[in-house]
């Protein structure tokens, strides 16, 4: 019986099988983090090859076709396989801890999200193994994606990979939205939620609502390539611009999906190391919501040069400039948090402060693009590359590093080495600016993006070499981090419950937290619960020794993910694979439904 076979014993807490069947949000968070960081390193290697190719004019490290595959896969890897899942890693580990719950609302669905993400990531990345990476850029404009211009399997890898990753993100987003709305500890009202949790909630809603347009666009592309429709083929009455619209209806909210986790992280780190509550909490929350709302009304600013006409351009330009206001509010709130505080400049805080600076640079060049005439000049130049890397590397990744140093003691019970961490921070900060700041200048003097080489004598040589050196400084920073990580993991866990004196609930339990997170579910009396309890002399509640029930491990998530993997490779191999895949998925769901969770 599936019912009996699906119930696994509780005692197996180590070993590969325990990780495969785990439904513990902390373990899934670790799986997400390790997988995503691996993909991050892989995307970094791709970037290094790109930079080496561009170091000198007429570079011949790779040929043009490989170069196109490299920049496409670099973008896809960093966006979908590194930054998004690194955010998901924090959500997974921290959400239940920060809201005082014992797990997410749907632990098995959480495991399924991870395994589906892994399947999608492996399929997308394996395109290189077959020598057929997608070459159309991450936004993959028609008609470059048609069978006429991309006859090999590259675009098919793109389509099925992104569809699978979309399913994974949708499941995770639904799970976290329900968790945050429904599983808050007693007293934890919405306006007492930590800002990081607010950002998680906003991102979940953005994902739930933004993924379907991308799914539709990918389905249309799949039908164009496999079943002879002409959605994006102008010669047969289709419209390539439709792809652009549907893609950016997803693509712009996606930008906020990438940056809001970092904003949430800094909003937690800055108050702790300034020893002062977050300045203007409601303003930060509402400006986060405003950014998410406005993010739906600006997608066409990616398409100012497609001939939309004056009225749409004006509307989208105005909406885009308005987004600068809530973003500015957040920046002033972070500065206001630090003002007058007694600041501790450790590694995490250094990253958080440099996040504000680097993100502001990226944000300001973003507001420049909001003006259609300016954007027409910037379109497809390195200026745009500079903008997006300041936001994603200077913004999102810097915020994520801040979060890693901040929560590492909670996650592992160990402190990352501060001295090595400071070296790593300065390498990172210098590397980001060396690599990406000259791109502004190169773009303005006319260097187009996505060229695989350039002629000498265009004044491109010096700054390209400078950027390439900068990219290796960044690589050195990541290596220093890996060294720090591995040496730290060999040490004994020494971290106390609340080493930083932080106010949020995750610091009320042990480091690392027990499997059931909290011995007693905490009660929240104020916005910064641990500071309130400390100031009012409220003791932590004593464990009552009552039985705590945890959901048993399950192998159905990985079974269903295997079915999804087979379904994913069907358009790449033979549609008959679906015959194999569907029974596995149906059996998996059936067993899942009957599996006892009590």
């Amino acid at each position, binding site marked *: 019986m599936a019912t009996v076979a699906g119930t696994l014993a509780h005692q197996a807490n180590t070993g590969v099988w325990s990780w495969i069947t785990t439904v513990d949000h902390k373990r899934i968070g670790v799986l997400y983090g390790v997988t995503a960081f691996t993909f991050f390193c892989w995307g970094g290697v791709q970037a290094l090859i790109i930079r080496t190719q561009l170091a000198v004019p007429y570079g011949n490290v790779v040929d043009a076709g490989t170069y196109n595959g490299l920049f496409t896969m670099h973008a896809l890897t960093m966006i979908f396989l590194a930054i998004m899942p690194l955010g998901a890693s924090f959500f997974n580990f921290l959400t239940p801890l920060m809201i005082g719950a014992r797990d997410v609302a749907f632990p098995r669905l959480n495991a399924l999200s991870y395994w589906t993400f892994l399947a999608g990531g492996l399929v997308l990345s394996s395109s290189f193994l077959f020598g057929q990476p997608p070459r159309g850029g991450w936004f993959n404009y028609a008609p470059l994606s048609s069978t006429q211009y991309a006859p090999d399997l590259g675009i098919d890898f793109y389509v099925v990979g992104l569809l699978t990753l979309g399913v994974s993100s949708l499941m995770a987003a639904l799970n976290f939205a329900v968790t945050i709305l429904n599983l808050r500890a007693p007293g934890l009202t919405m306006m007492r939620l930590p800002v990081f949790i607010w950002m998680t909630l906003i991102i979940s809603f953005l994902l739930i609502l933004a993924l379907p347009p991308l799914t539709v666009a990918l389905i249309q592309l799949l039908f164009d390539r496999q079943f002879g429709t002409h959605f994006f083929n*102008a*010669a047969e009455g289709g419209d390539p611009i*439709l792809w652009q619209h549907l893609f950016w209806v997803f693509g712009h909210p996606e930008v906020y999906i990438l940056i809001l986790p970092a904003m949430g992280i800094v909003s937690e780190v800055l108050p702790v190391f300034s020893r002062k509550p977050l300045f203007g909490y409601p303003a930060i929350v509402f400006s986060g919501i405003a950014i998410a709302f406005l993010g739906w009304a600006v997608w066409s600013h990616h398409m100012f040069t497609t001939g*939309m006409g004056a009225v749409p351009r004006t509307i989208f330009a105005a909406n885009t400039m308005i987004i600068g206001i809530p973003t500015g509010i957040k920046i002033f709130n972070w500065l206001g948090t630090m003002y007058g505080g007694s600041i501790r400049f450790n590694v995490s805080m250094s990253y958080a402060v440099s996040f504000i600076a680097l993100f502001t640079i990226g944000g300001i060049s973003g507001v420049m693009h909001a003006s259609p005439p300016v954007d027409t000049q910037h379109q497809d130049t390195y200026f745009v590359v500079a903008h997006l890397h300041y936001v994603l590397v200077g913004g999102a990744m810097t915020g994520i590093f801040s979060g890693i140093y901040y929560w590492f003691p909670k996650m592992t019970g160990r402190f990352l080495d501060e001295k090595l961490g400071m070296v790593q921070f300065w390498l990172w900060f210098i590397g980001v600016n060396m690599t990406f700041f000259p791109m502004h200048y190169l773009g303005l003097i006319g260097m187009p993006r996505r060229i695989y080489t350039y002629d000498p004598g265009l004044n491109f040589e010096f700054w390209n070499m400078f950027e390439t050196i900068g990219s290796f400084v960044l690589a050195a920073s990541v290596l220093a981090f890996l060294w720090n990580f591995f040496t730290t993991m060999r040490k004994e866990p020494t971290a106390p419950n609340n080493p930083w004196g932080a106010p949020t609930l995750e610091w009320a339990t042990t480091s690392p937290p027990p499997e059931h997170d909290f011995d007693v579910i905490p009660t929240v009396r104020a916005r910064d619960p641990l500071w309130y309890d400390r100031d009012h002399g409220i003791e932590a509640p004593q464990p009552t020794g009552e039985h705590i029930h945890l959901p048993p491990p399950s192998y159905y998530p990985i079974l269903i993910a295997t079915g999804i993997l087979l379904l994913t490779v069907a358009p790449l191999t033979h549609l008959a694979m679906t015959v194999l895949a569907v029974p596995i998925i149906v059996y998996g769901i059936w067993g899942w439904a009957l599996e006892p969770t009590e």
Partner: protein
Amino acid sequence: MAHSSGHEAEQHGLQPRQYLLIGLALTLITLVELWVSYSGMPYGLLVGTLMILSAVKFVVVVAYFMHLRFESSLMTKLFAGSFVLAALIMFALLALFWGDLATGIRANRIPPGETAPPPASAPAKAH
């Protein structure tokens, strides 16, 4: 169905007879829609009437069959919010594409070598 009166209702909701009546009403609205579709009234009025009638059906099914009327307002907000967002994006897309058609910008997208299509018209009553 007759036994139901003896049971304590677990959930808010209507009685089977009321569900049947709603089903009947939905069928009647569908018949009216069919009549409107064939009636030959002015195109704008026809489209408007049909949209209103199908919106009524939509709301009735969501409110009574899906019990949204008896649930916490949180779910109404979530679903209505998503629906409104979907509708707004649809209208924006249509405005962007149909606006192109009206101003002739779209005609420029016909690839070189092809002639512009012949002007066509759709009659108001078209069955």
